[in-house]
């Protein structure tokens, strides 16, 4: 699992599924998803569902914290760290 690949997939997913292909957004890996309210908690759940399906993994509820899901980069770091 390559972090860069995860990041790209994530950005594609967030832009197409959660941001309706909004053209005015150029989402960067470090963009704060949560406090900017680009993505809300329901959106995080969609991201989790996407990752689990895409990578065949399981993200335990206890890992769903703001520390792990603040931006695309943190998410991918978390993912690579916990699923190597």
């Amino acid at each position, binding site marked *: 699992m390559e972090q860069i690949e995860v990041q790209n997939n994530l950005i594609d997913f967030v832009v197409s599924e*959660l941001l309706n292909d909004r053209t005015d957004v150029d989402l960067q890996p470090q963009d704060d998803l949560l406090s900017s309210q*680009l993505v809300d908690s*329901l959106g995080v759940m969609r991201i989790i*569902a996407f990752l689990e399906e895409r990578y065949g993994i399981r993200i335990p509820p206890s890992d*769903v*914290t*703001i520390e792990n899901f603040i931006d695309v980069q943190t998410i991918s770091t978390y993912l690579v760290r916990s699923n190597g």
Partner: protein
Amino acid sequence: MANLQPQVEGGRSNGLPLTQGQQLIWSGQQLHPESPLYNMAFMFTLSGSLDADVFGRAFGTLVSRCEALRTVIVSEQGVPAQHLLESVADGHQLLDFSFETDPDHAAHSWAVTQCAEPFDLAKRLFDSALIKLGERRHAWFFSQHHVVCDAWSITIIFRELSEIYARLIEGARQSGPAMPSFADYVAYESQARIKGVAAGYWDQVRSQAPAPVALYGRNPGRVSTRSERVVFELGEERTARLRELAQLPGIRTLSVDLALFNLFATLVFSFLYRVSGQRDLAIGAPAHNRPTPAFKQTVGLFTEVYPLHVALTDGDTFFDLHAKVSAQTMMFLRNALPGASHPGNNAGCNTVLNYINAAFGDFAGEPVQPLWLHSGHKDREHHLRLQVQDFAATGRFTLYFDFNCDAFNRTQRQAAVAHFGRLLDAMLGDPACPIDDVPLLGPAELSWQVDDFNQPGQGRSHGNNVLARIEQQALATPAATALSCAGQSLTYRELNLLASHLARNLGSNLTDNERVVAVCTRRSIETVVGMLGVMKTGRAYLPLDPDWPAERLALVIEDAGVSTVLVPATGEVRLPQHLRILPIPTGLSDAGAEARDAGSALQAGDLAYVMYTSGSTGKPKGVMIRHASLANYVGWACDHYVRGRVLTFPLFTPLTFDLTVTSIFVPLASGGAIAIYPPSPGQADLALLDVLDDNCVDIVKLTPSHLALIQGRDLRASRIRQLILGGEDFTVALARRAREIFGEDTLLHNEYGPTEGTVGCIVHTFDPVSDIESSVPVGVPIDNMRAYVLDRKLRPLPRGVAGELYIGGVGLADGYLNRPELSAERFVPNPFRVGELLYRTGDLARFNERSELDYLGRDDDQVKIRGARIELGEIEKVITSHPAVANCVVSVFERDVSGDPSEDVVCCSRCGLPSNYPGASFDEQMVCNQCRAFERYQDKATNYFQSMDDLHAIFDAGRADGNRDYDCLALLSGGKDSTYMLCRLVDMGLSVLAFTLDNGYISDGAKANIGRVVKTLGVDHVFGSTPAMNEIFVDSLRRHANVCQGCFKTIYTLSVNLALERDIPFIVTGLSRGQFFETRLTEEVFTTPGFDGRDIDESTMLARKAYHRVDDAANRLLDVEVFKDDDVFEKVRFIDFYRYCAADLQAMLDYLDRRVAWVRPADTGRSTNCLINDVGIFMHQRQRGYHNYALPYSWDVRMGHKTREAALAELDDEIDVANVERILQEIGYDIDVVARPGEKRLAAYFTAHGKVATEDLRAWVKSELPDFMLPSHFVQLERIPLSSNGKVDRDRLPPPDAGRPSLEAAFEAPRTPVERQLAEIWCNVLRVDQVGIRDNFFELGGDSIMAIQIVARARRFGLHVLPSQLVDKPTIAALAASLGSTAADAQDAPMAAGDDLVPMPMAHWLFEQPRHVVAHWNHVLRLRPAAGLLPQQIEQGLQVVLDRHEALTMRYRHDAGRWLAGRRKTALRVELRELNAGGDDRPQEDRLRSAAETLHRDIDIGEGRLLAAGLLSSDSGMSELMLVIHHLAVDVVSWAVLLEDLSVACAQIQEGLQPTPVPQTASLQRWAAALQAHANSEHARAELGYWQDALGVAGGTGVADLPQDATADNTPMEPLRRSLTAEDTRALLQEVPRTGRISVVELLTAALARTLADADGTSPVRLFLEGHGRQLTGSPLDVSRTLGWFTSLYPVSIPVPGDDRAASWLRDVKEALRRVPSGGTVFGLLRYLSDDKATRLGLVGGDAGAVLFNYLGNTDQLSAPDSMFKVLQPLALHRHPDALLRYRGEVNAMVTGGHLVVDWSHGSRARSSADIERDLGCFLDNVRMLVYAALGSDSSSLSESDFPLANLDKNGLDKLASLLGGKPGKA
């Protein structure tokens, strides 16, 4: 107005489906079309200058831009869709309230009203108004239906409007970017809908849904949508603290809002837990469902509600609970996908938490105050909705609590918010605080519970002992009766003397350390003397039951340390050897002359008595009661129940329970009396029935179980006016029944109290108006007692919440004798009163809304069964001590017998299946699961059906198989389906034998159809029948709650037998396709993987084989030999015709019309051919709550054979309950079963080494424990089921077999009517399906109370069973045999051949007629014998009857001016004549008449040939038996006996058995001798004067009034006949007797007397009445089964009341009749049998002026329901045409076919027929009027039309009405 034409706009197609969220809102609105429950309304106060005109335009623009505002919901055929309208008139209003004194208030009031206006979903779904409040202040009111918006949407609308307004003000034309369309979300949802994982998750959540929370103990099933909002401002400080908490590690999460949601959810769960006690909880929470930025900008309904489940554990802190909540929230959010919600998901959620994170900004730059309005209505499923919001973005939360008004009253609403607030503050203060520790109640609530509730009776002194009171009473009323028992009694003085004497004797024997003296007596005078004697010595008495097992007696004596036992002076008691046993004195001769009053010496703290109760550790424990406690209870009870009167109490219950303390000490302390009912040794206790029969007590203390024993009695006239119920839960249903039985003025006191609280400490008197829950409240504490409902920390619980009941006060026991540790455990310090103790009752209770205590059952293993307190552990210990038993659990079970006819039934919108059909569920379109499932397998199912060609092929193959008479047997019910089938089979060229089961209830219409059809078609036809039909019906009702199952099985059984017999290869059924699906084509058949059409045939065959193996009545009573071998189904194959034929209804009807003139039967009232069908429908609905045709009809609808409306219309039956009851009685079904609630019984489950016989185990338990602790069921298990925590999992114990338990004895069916009757009674009482005659009563679960029920019920059926017989002979066979021998005691040697007989009075009466007339005075009865009964069998049966009853062979000869009677010298052979055999074309009437004439000629009284019989065949081809018997041999009672004997004999003969000799009762000779003796007794002569007065001929004329000249022109005319309507008859027969004021015969007599008084104005009216005459004062002879003419005929003289009102008539006639001595018998004795000629002559004459009236009762009941002979026509009397008329008229009334029928005969000379006709009409009208009067009806509702027979005019009506005491209404 809205343009309702759906439009297409912008390419968007119209008629979009609703989203899941919309669907739920829409369905909710459909359920409450008039309720504004989904109105979302706001009022925004706008400051600053506002241009109202521009605002209006802005709003118009908004409407045109916003799709949601132009959307309407239109439903077609129940399917809703959303339509977008091109334009909508916005309806925007401009209002001006600025001139009001308080414009804001006025605007608010207007808005609150306006927001409750319901929307029409097909029209505009919003409402807007701009209100001017002042120069620079406006309010915008905006309301919208939730189906097109949510709170978030409204913020969008508001922002949009603000922007448009701002642009318009700026003069801009550009209207900004387009608003996104909700259609996009509809499309999105359809893709996203129910992603697999989410659906699985919610399915799992749904399957684990906890029970709905009973908030404050309340979970009202039916509530309205009314709701009230309570607002709770959180304020700055609390909000800030919350936000702080939200940032704490462990609480902080993805977003602040999510963290805040979790905190609020934690609070809501804590609150629910604390106000319900429930730990497993669910709430509903909306998810906003706006995952993308575009959706966040879209107006529409996005939210969906999902459940959140959490389970609390003991000691959870807020932190702990929060952790559980946040874990659940994560799962919740992950699975809250658009469209994933489901109505079933939220089952169990009656609370919703709505955390709203939406806010309104300013309006065009000016500040705004938003206010969310409450429409006053919300979803009724949501008892509480907590809405958290900060719409104005103030930074402070406001909590809106929307309470359902029916679930919370006003006080509870306020209290609930306060309780929530305390939990909130506790959490904000310290989230690590255990939730249990938070004090919930406010100071006012606390002081109410602790002090106010317990205040009323404090400080009333009742003295310090009862003994002193009783001794004072002995001084005050020494001669008054204190006790009576079996004819003996004691005065107060005598009682005191005896007790004093005993005390002296006892005192000299006792040692100082003997504190307790046992009294071991059965209930008797000694019992009371013994108790008082012990008290006088200053010791406590301990009651012991001599009937306890010796082991238990020894155990208690040892535990109590007793050395001295008082016993009765006579009688034996088994007591251990070492005791000092002293007798109790019984007579004053034993007593010293001096009373010794000891009461004054007693101290309050001295012990009064010790009473043993069941102990949980397996050892009973002695409760010590002090004198002060007893004095307090007794003193209070005297004040409360006796209230200064002198009342008699019965003592009839076991002395070892403190129930009897009331019945002993309350009367003695208040100068009343005790009526003691001793138990009979070895017998079950029947004393209560004796108490009621004796009617000599005023007040009874008893348990609810005792009370429930009293059934079907009218005790309103009883002396008993108060009942004190104690010992167990008293249900409201029972209380209501008690009021019916004892009358509405009877007080029912529900007295609660454990032995440890001295008898009773909390009390409530039943109030039928306010006591509407299932149990009667226990009420409030008695004087000087206190009660608390506490949690485990001994803190009061909120009102309504269940907790343990604690009691304190003067009545508290002094602990347990010699058990200090146990005492300390149960008696704990009272936290509210220093130095006092509380007793932990172990009972659950709560405060109800009327501030009374409700009892809610036990908190632990202790149970109460019929008032007896039982520790299950004690029984378990005894069973486990059996050497073979390894482990044991005893459990209580209750058989639920009544269904749940829910009031709130809805029906599937497609097929009409009702929601209470088992397993039915509906989706949001109200379509049932069966319809939905069928969608999936419809194609497969269709393949199952085949064509007529296939059917041809089957028959062709069958024919090739051999040469037979018939190709098939067709089952013909006479309905359209089977008739059509038969026609088509014939059309196919088949040779068909048609078969119909005559179940005794086939309608005449259907029979006519059958006759016509088979004749037209020319097919052979057979009617099958079985004498067991009624029994099969009863069995079917009991098993399936319908009659059809039994009928079907009978049809299959008989038809298979017939087919085999006639070698017919096929049986063709006419089952409808709907019936296939109902019975065999279930979903599983089709959805099994690898489904193959042939599998269905195979599984159908397997099912059929199994079906014929089920052990039911049909299997037991019919010939089922053929089914022993499964090959039978190869020899005879079943073909379902409609599998091959698809004709629709109209085609069938058209065809039938052309082919056979089939007519829909008009006499059944619905599409059935069978009159008993109503019974099945009625019972099914009553017991299971839904119609038994509900499922098959739903299949007919699904199959397209019926419309839903037609099906529902057919299911909406009006059933005539009286008719149902009549048929139930006819078939022998005991309807009481329906009304009786479930009873509690004990079941013992055990594991053992090897097989243990339950009989051994039962004996083992019986030797150790009293009877009330003996389990009724013993079940051996492989292992005892345990729950995860290692405790016994009682829920998983198998229910004890509901059917006949597996017993040692093989099943043997009852053989005789008595056995059958007993078996029926046993089944009903024991609640088992069947009872074999060798089955043991106790093995079947019987106990002593059931024994009483059986005895009581058997008495109703005329079987005199003694309880001891049931104990000694516990099988039906033995019992029936012993009944035979009991009856034999009354038996008498019959008269020998040639014996002489003194003719009885009625014979003498007849002998006054000319001789040839005497010879012809015959009864004629027409009967239908059961099918299959052969003529020779009937003849043999008649011979049995003739041989048995001497009356039938008595000779009457006239010799030397006298009639002589004697028995025939030779035996007589019965000859059964074949009458009109062969073709006889005369009308049936003629044939009947000539048949009767033939038989009349056979009667020869001179030869002793009094019975003649003949068989004739009627039009229908069925034979009928005509019996003619001379009246000298029979009366109505005789006929019933004769028919029973004949039926039994024929049944036995048919079975090839020897008829059992049934003993006759007393012989005619002995009876006649007794009559003669009585006629000459002083007793009889004393009545002479009375009878002369009644006759109205002073001294008698000495001449009978018979006109001896037979040619006198007074020839008898044909009697005129009229009948009363069925409705009036029912009122007369059923309602009138229930009033208890007057009997049926009294009322009829009153009506006749009135009629006669009106007709000729004479007073008094003279009548002759006929009684049954089978009782003779002082004679022990029983003639209940002797044949003969026993009736008494006697005159009554009825004075015409001065006052002409109906009530006066009823009263005067009743009094006149009740004055008649000896039931009238003596008149005939004096007149005909007296040796004194003057006496005889003194009573002759007076006949001619009188009218004879005879009420024969219900003649339908002459033959029993299960008789082999059905009565075809009422009993008729044929007299010789020359019979002389002795009375003015003769009126015979009887009930037949549900009508009162009156025959009025008269002579030609008396009056014209027209006169009589009018009299008859008046008589019936008088009957009706008196019925009205007796029932207390309001006469203002009467009109002429109510009295059609009398031709009343207005004056007549006024007169009538004035008689009734009212004014005519609609005249």
